[in-house]
């Protein structure tokens, strides 16, 4: 316990010292907030605009969460399907792998043109961004299971479905959750970038309008809140992992 405290305390202290230095030099040299706002000024900006910021976070978080949930479900289903049908795996696995080396977020622009500027288009972008890593890891996890374990279950008379739900999926959960954590940050980025194409609500819109109006403190506030939203989303997935895959020691 003390050990864990020390591991967190030292880096936190470093960041705190850095923030104090930042605050101190901005105050000492009277830097204009339009060049570099001090941490206190950024916090004040957040507090001042808390209602607008909260609703922006709500919109973006909803888009990312709906997308992440959809992408996870479709990803797991596709991974399972490919793992059961060898031909499908051989047909589509190369493309799943290649998708990880390509800016598939660029297709978001086309999604926006098809589905308009509402929440749904951003959620769809988040769906397909989180789909790919989940599908790849589900398939890889199921393929990595020892054939002897499957043979053992089969010798007890287990059918394909029983093997899938009793062995393959539970054993693959850690890999799936690794992918969902990656998918969570991708979903958030997808939602924000999607909002740059003419949305009226969300963190992406706040970032964009602050840029157009040259409101630097507002921009820093949005940056901090984007980081906080991403961290919260990530934390939510970790929490879920502890609930669902509780037997697995958390790293």
């Amino acid at each position, binding site marked *: 316990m003390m050990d864990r405290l020390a591991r967190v305390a*030292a*880096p*936190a202290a*470093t*960041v705190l010292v*850095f923030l104090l230095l930042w605050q101190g030099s901005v105050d000492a040299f009277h830097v204009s907030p339009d060049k570099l706002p001090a941490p206190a000024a950024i916090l004040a900006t957040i507090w001042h605009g808390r209602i607008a910021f909260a609703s922006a976070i709500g919109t973006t978080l909803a888009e990312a969460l709906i997308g992440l949930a959809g992408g996870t479900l479709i990803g797991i289903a596709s991974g399972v399907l490919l793992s059961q049908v060898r*031909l499908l795996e*051989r*047909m*589509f*696995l*190369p*493309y799943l792998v*290649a998708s*990880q*080396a*390509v*800016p*598939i*977020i*660029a*297709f978001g*622009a*086309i999604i*926006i*043109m*098809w589905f308009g500027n509402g929440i749904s288009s951003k959620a769809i972008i988040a769906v397909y961004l989180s789909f790919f890593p989940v599908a790849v890891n589900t398939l890889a996890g199921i393929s990595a299971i020892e054939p002897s374990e499957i043979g053992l279950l089969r010798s007890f008379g287990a059918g394909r479905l029983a093997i899938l739900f009793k062995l393959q999926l539970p054993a693959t959960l850690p890999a799936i959750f690794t992918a969902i954590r990656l998918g969570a*940050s991708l979903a*958030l*980025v997808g939602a*924000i*970038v999607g909002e*740059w*194409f*003419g949305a009226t609500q969300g*963190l992406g819109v706040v*970032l*964009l309008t*602050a*840029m157009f109006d*040259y409101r*630097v403190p507002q*921009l*820093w506030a*949005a*940056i*901090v809140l*984007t*980081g906080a939203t*991403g*961290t919260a989303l990530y934390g939510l997935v970790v929490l879920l992992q502890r609930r669902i895959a509780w037997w697995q020691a958390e790293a």
Partner: protein
Amino acid sequence: MSRSARMAVRLWPPALAALLVLAAWELAVWWFQLPDFVLPTPQNIVLTALQDPRHVLDDTLTTVAEAMGGYLAGSLLGLALAIVFVVVPWLGRAAMPLYVTINSVPMIAYGPLAIIFLGVGSASKVVLIVVAVSYTVLTNALAGLRQCDAGMISLLRSYGASDVTILTKLRIPAAVPAIFAGLRVAVVHAMILAVVLEMLGANAGLGWSIFRSTQMMDFVQAWVAVGASVVASLVIYSAIDWISRRCAWW
């Protein structure tokens, strides 16, 4: 089985998948009479790109130059920092929490800030790519440099090896696979960031072309730019992958 025969066995299923998807695509457009602004045919996209190849090529070169410039500088920075942090551990302990904090925010959120201070040109993109790439390479290289076995270090030391010898003869060679894993992931980040940041504001590049075409509802042109960004990324990734296989043959 000969090598080419094995290759053919491995390649026909993905080729069949591509053929089926392309056929379904062309068929859907033809059957439902979809206009270009709903879904242009693959044929139409390629023809449009070929009509004005200079245009697509210029945009591609701009984006690739930003991505690769930031990638090279960021990789060197990340490697240099990793070596410094291993040689001078207290510096690493002081700097890493800041690096982690900066990178806990999605890099694209800094985009507007970079554009305000560095303009809509390439500089704003390159700087953010350097930050993102150096972080990925740094964390991978640190993990690689630290993983090597304490027993081997004390063995070398017992032969009178200096810290520098241990670093160059043991730690760095042992870290090479991890470093290349970082370099492979980072090159994808670099391309994604270049394209996405151009969407935010630029005066050239594939991301900018995508953004402009969507604003003008020019669907075919948007598909051309998206397709070009996919092809360019695949080429660059394959090149890095090939180089890393050559260098880390063990």
